[in-house]
């Protein structure tokens, strides 16, 4: 990651594609697990990277070198996601009559995991996904979601045990 920071600080335009390549899959699938909607996750991923680029464009090289990219990107994404949900709540949403298939290969047990994660509260779901799907540390999650570390730990703990119970009940 440090090489990437250096590259960004030296030549943002040239290096930014590598940020998308390197962080894109994790960002997209993390968001995809949180919101349960492929298209919305694509939009959020795209918008997050665009905002990240604009922010980096205004930063001094020193600040870019010191940036912890992964948690920083996730702070942008979580802020966007919150607004997205709020915006969506204010307008009517169309009912999907047909499954809109995507050409992208999806990982194992997709529908099953969507269902299981949907049972969690949104705080639990975000915390569990950021911790165990994306792989962020507790402090990084606390920053990204804007909640205290203790609360984040509790969310993860409760979320995981609820997932275990759900899986047990399935079999």
């Amino acid at each position, binding site marked *: 990651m440090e090489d990437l920071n250096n590259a960004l600080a030296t030549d943002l*335009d040239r290096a*930014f*594609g590598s940020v*998308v*390549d390197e962080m*894109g*899959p*994790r960002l*997209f*699938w*993390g968001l995809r*697990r949180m919101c349960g909607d*492929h298209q919305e996750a*694509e939009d959020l*991923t*795209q*918008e997050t*990277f*665009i905002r990240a*680029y*604009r922010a980096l464009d205004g930063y001094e090289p020193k600040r870019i070198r010191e940036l912890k990219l992964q948690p920083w990107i996730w702070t942008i994404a979580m802020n966007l996601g919150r607004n997205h949900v709020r915006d969506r709540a204010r307008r009517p949403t169309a009912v999907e009559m047909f499954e809109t298939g*995507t*050409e*992208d*290969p*999806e*990982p*194992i047990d997709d529908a099953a*995991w969507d269902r299981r994660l949907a049972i969690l509260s949104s705080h639990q779901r975000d915390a*569990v*996904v950021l911790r*165990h*799907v994306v*792989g962020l540390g507790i402090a990084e999650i606390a920053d990204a979601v804007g909640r205290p570390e203790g609360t984040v730990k509790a969310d993860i703990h409760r979320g*995981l045990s609820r*997932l*275990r119970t759900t*899986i047990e009940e399935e079999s």
Partner: protein
Amino acid sequence: MTVESQLESLIGSLPGGVSEGVALGTGLAEGYDFYPSALGQVVVTFNPNGVSSLDTVDLFEDRWAARIGKPLIRAEAPQAWASHIPEAIERGTPGKLPVDLSSVTDFQRSVLAKTATIPRGEVRPYGWVAKEVERPKAVRAVGSAVARNPIPLIIPCHRVVRTDGHIGNYSLGGPHNKHELLEYEGADPDQLEMLAAQNIRLNGNTTTGIYCHPTCRHVRRSRESNLVAFSSTEQAAEEGFRACKDCRPGPKT
């Protein structure tokens, strides 16, 4: 298998299209699409700020590489203004379409902005543009600014002609295309060349006492028997005519 390790495996690859969307949204790449025009199919490029260039299919790739050089992605123009593109091409003016002229200098931008005000079916000399942008002596600089117009057709540089009245050169495929466009817009390029050969630069209307560029709508609306020809603004002024306030052929006051 623990819940934690199952969660770790829930990551796949980045869906196709996202990287391209990011490149387009940041302006690191520009989008392009094809549109019909009076000169056949043309390529239009765009970014979030507006349309950035237009070229013929043949010339596009080489000229893009030389001028801008950014990566290109086949895309649909932003929904907010995509529908204005065909109209802007057909009418020969940006209208509501945002244009991105960040690839040219401030002077070139002011020349192109002035060029965009020339009405369809009319032409103006390079010297007129120079005068209108408050740089009356910079006729040659105006000529090269117009020649480097990145968005021809939409910014109608084909309506700027040589100061001696000949229709002059055209960067979008040569003078025959300029001829064809002017004809298409009803400006009668053959007659323009004929007037030039006779040293006629201006027309006066004996009823109103006003002189205009020969393609000004006020001339085209006049009865031919009321029209007189002048070779210069000085001659028109000497004979007691004043300059039209719409096509502004006279010296800057």
